[in-house]
């Protein structure tokens, strides 16, 4: 049986009704992985033995008539920067090539309690630094809609696994757009929750003040289901928010009447590809049709968001990645004859060029004499960006923008790092302000999916889900199936 585009909620029904078993489902997905992953290359590590054992356990539970959680027995894929005890976690880096974590991330603990299934770990940009999944040390992931194109990044493996039918749901992490942009490139739904909604404990840190784990799924309902499991305060993460977690599936109502949707003019400028803009405009029309009110707003400091991000994120990364020194775990250069030499050589050889570039950038902006000009200034601008959003939300309930200025572009393109960085202009401000953002499919350009981004108020996930769900139910974009063509 083919489970492409099968959703968590549909499969849950089938499991409960005993139309399928979790073992059948899991085997079928592994079969699919066997069939297509040599083309897509979404996975870095598979864990078939444990996955099938878990599937059998859930089948037994169902046979005994036990009530199971919505994610129970449904196979998902986990980005390779999220720690699963005993399963290799590489961050797609040579420096962690053989690293086996000794503990579960908080989200993994929660998912295990719900008796879900982990198929394996997905490819990503090395340490989540990139927007194409090309900076992975191990392999390049290919976009299932056109295998010559990138899947986006950094959660490219988690998104392309969904698009190719190699997983039913997946987890990514989003520091500057790393869930939303690949979701958009792959025709999936991806949510970056409010900063602090999901514990970061066990997600290998890139930029601590920006990182957030979130789901990538086939539809909005599935995203709500995964959020229900992974959200909530965690005593191991001081920045996790002590707020009650609502049942997000209750927010899934087909109703946007009276909802005020803001269009920030800075997100519709020259940098956005005209055909992409065209699709977004159609989506806006659709919302009007569905009864939403559209308001023009401005986020005046948007133009500084990318440059500010590329000061703050590398600064935090330069410290976060300092622990990879060859002393306790990970890659070690064995030829060095002193401790400092060993650490230098291990890091030089263990990190790829993009990671080294960002560590150097971060080290530089924190250096004595430069701190005030760069880091301190960037933090001040960050406050201004946050205030822009606060003011905008006085006039509307959520914002609508393109998720990315472009659709997925060819692998191995000749863009400079700076040109690639600038493409994150639409997603980065959301992380800078700690807001929730969702990307949902809203059209096609050159047969490639276009994503629309909705940005919510802090803890405004329910409004986002409601608006996204209403659009999704009124359209067919999320049902389109990737061709696995182009090669």
């Amino acid at each position: 049986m083919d489970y492409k585009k099968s959703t968590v909620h549909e499969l849950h029904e089938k499991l409960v009704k005993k139309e399928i078993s979790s073992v059948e489902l899991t085997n079928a997905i592994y079969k699919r992985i066997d069939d297509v992953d040599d083309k897509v290359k979404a996975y870095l590590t598979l864990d078939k033995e444990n996955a099938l054992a878990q599937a059998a356990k859930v089948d037994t539970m169902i046979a005994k008539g036990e009530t199971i959680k919505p994610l129970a027995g449904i196979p998902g894929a986990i980005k390779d920067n999220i720690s699963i005890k005993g399963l290799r976690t590489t961050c797609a880096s040579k420096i962690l090539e053989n690293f086996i974590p000794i503990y579960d991330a908080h989200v993994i603990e929660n998912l295990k309690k719900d008796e879900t299934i982990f198929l394996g770990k997905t490819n990503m940009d090395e340490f989540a630094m990139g927007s194409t999944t090309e900076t992975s040390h191990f392999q390049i992931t290919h976009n299932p809609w056109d295998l010559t194109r990138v899947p986006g990044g950094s959660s490219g493996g988690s998104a392309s696994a969904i698009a190719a039918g190699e997983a039913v749901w997946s987890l990514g992490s989003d520091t500057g757009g790393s869930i939303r942009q690949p979701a958009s490139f792959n025709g999936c739904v991806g949510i970056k929750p409010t900063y602090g909604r999901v514990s970061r404990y066990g997600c290998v840190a890139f930029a601590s003040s920006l990182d957030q784990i979130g789901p990538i799924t086939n539809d909005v309902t599935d995203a709500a289901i995964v959020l229900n499991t992974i959200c909530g305060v965690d005593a191991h993460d001081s920045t996790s928010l002590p707020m009650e977690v609502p049942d997000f599936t209750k927010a899934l109502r087909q109703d946007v009447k009276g909802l005020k949707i803001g269009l920030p003019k800075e997100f519709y400028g020259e940098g956005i590809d005209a055909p992409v803009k065209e699709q977004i405009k159609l989506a806006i029309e659709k919302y009007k049709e569905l009864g939403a009110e559209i308001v023009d707003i401005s986020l005046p400091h948007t133009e500084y968001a990318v440059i500010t991000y590329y000061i703050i994120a590398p600064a935090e990364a330069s410290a976060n990645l300092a622990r990879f020194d060859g002393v306790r775990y990970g890659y070690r250069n064995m030829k060095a004859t002193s401790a400092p030499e060993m650490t230098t050589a291990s890091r030089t050889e263990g990190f790829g060029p993009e990671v080294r570039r960002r560590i150097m950038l971060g080290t530089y902006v924190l250096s004595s004499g430069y701190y005030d000009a760069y880091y301190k200034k960037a933090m001040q601008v960050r406050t201004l960006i946050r205030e822009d959003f606060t003011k905008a939300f006085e006039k509307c309930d959520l914002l609508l923008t393109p998720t990315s200025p472009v659709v997925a572009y060819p692998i191995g393109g000749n863009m400079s790092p700076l040109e690639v960085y600038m493409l994150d202009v639409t997603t980065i401000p959301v992380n800078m302000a700690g807001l929730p953002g969702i990307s949902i499919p809203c059209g096609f350009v050159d047969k490639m999916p276009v994503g629309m981004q909705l940005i919510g108020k802090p803890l405004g996930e329910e409004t986002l889900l409601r608006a996204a769900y209403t659009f999704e139910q009124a359209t067919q974009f999320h049902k389109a199936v990737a061709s696995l063509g182009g090669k």
Partner: protein
Amino acid sequence: MTEYTTVIGLEVHAELKTKSKAFCSCSTSFGSEPNTHVCPVCLGMPGALPVMNKRVVEFAVRFGLAVNCDIQKYSKFDRKNYFYPDLSKNYQISQFAQPICLGGHLDIQVDGKTKRVGITRIHMEEDAGKLVHSGATINTSDSSAVDYNRAGVPLIEIVSEPDMRSAAEARAYMEKLKAYLEYTDVCDCKMQEGSMRCDANISVMPEGAKEFGTRAEIKNLNSFRALEKTIEYEVQRQIQILEDGGHIVQETRTWDDAQGVTFSMRSKEEAHDYRYFPEPDLVPIVLDDAYIDKVRSELPELPDARKARLIKEKGLQEYDAELIVSNKKMADYYAKADKVASDAKVLANWMLGEVSAYLNNNTVEMDKFPISPEHLGELVNLIKKGVLSNKLAKQVFAEMLKADKAPAELVKSLGLEQVSDTGALQAMVDEVIAANPQSVADFKAGKDRAVGFLVGQIMKKSRGKANPAMVNEMIVKKLKE
């Protein structure tokens, strides 16, 4: 030769005696098997995050209040970045820009004068692990192992103003700090185990100069003696350079205890750029008045207050009172013994005399002293009642050190009771006077010294047990007959 003024500021690190580490729940206990008190957080495993131990904040606030600091209602942590194999994350979580305590002070006494030493700030941070080298140093070893048991143990760093002018003042300040750390019960102050250690900033300037000289920072001094020796050495070294027409280089130096010298570790140019920035994994520490007042209300009696009380209520000399309170264990022992003893001053003399001598000679701490405070108090009472002479009391004391028995019991079992029985003494007096006609003649000739000789004879005869005061009186009476 120019006269120089020495300027000293100290940065003292004190390990807080919380049960668990600063940012995880691992035990802080010392001396366990290597790497047995570790977890993903203190090992710096990928993805692990720190969580503030609230007791650490409480301890820092308690100590800050004790040394008269302004407790900051808003403070936060920063990352101090440097690579070293004992530092599991290769950054230390510390407080740089906004520490928890600012602006305190302590009063020290040197040569009978009281001096106020300012405390610039106190901040919280985590300790690093420990390197165990196969050879002498990291650079001369084939291999080194790392023990992370200490990684993440909470510290406070207490930074003084450059207010001290001599090694004696620096030592007095350090001793005072130690007393305050012990009284507030935030640190066990075991310097040899490194739970209290200090860095000294030392400079010299010509007497009367307005600007301080260039300073050298001497790292990791872990005894009072090392602190004093370092300062004495460093001051001479710097004066010598200036006298020879040279200039002092700002640098970090280290003290070599074996050779008794300091030597350069790194110059200002080679100094670390720690690239401090706010720790994004921890939220700021926000305290309110109610919290601070509660901690303040729970403060115990502090050394200076206890000293004042001993002077006022017990009539002790300031110097004696200072010595007793400077060691919390001794002060607590004194307080217990004082409940039993009938004379606080005699007790103080014993504490600072025999008891201190025993502790010094055997290098033990007060809590390992074999005699219970109650028994020492009883010994004082036996002296005061005239049951024991000082000399006999010392004998009893020596026995008590061997077995902590009630002194009255020992006096009996050893037959050391002082003879104060008039009849028995009179017999001895008569006998001795009869046997020493020359002394009697001397006395009659006006030589009072003869009395002493006769008393000595009786003491000898009684093997020290005769009550000397009574004997003296009886001899004089007899001679005057």
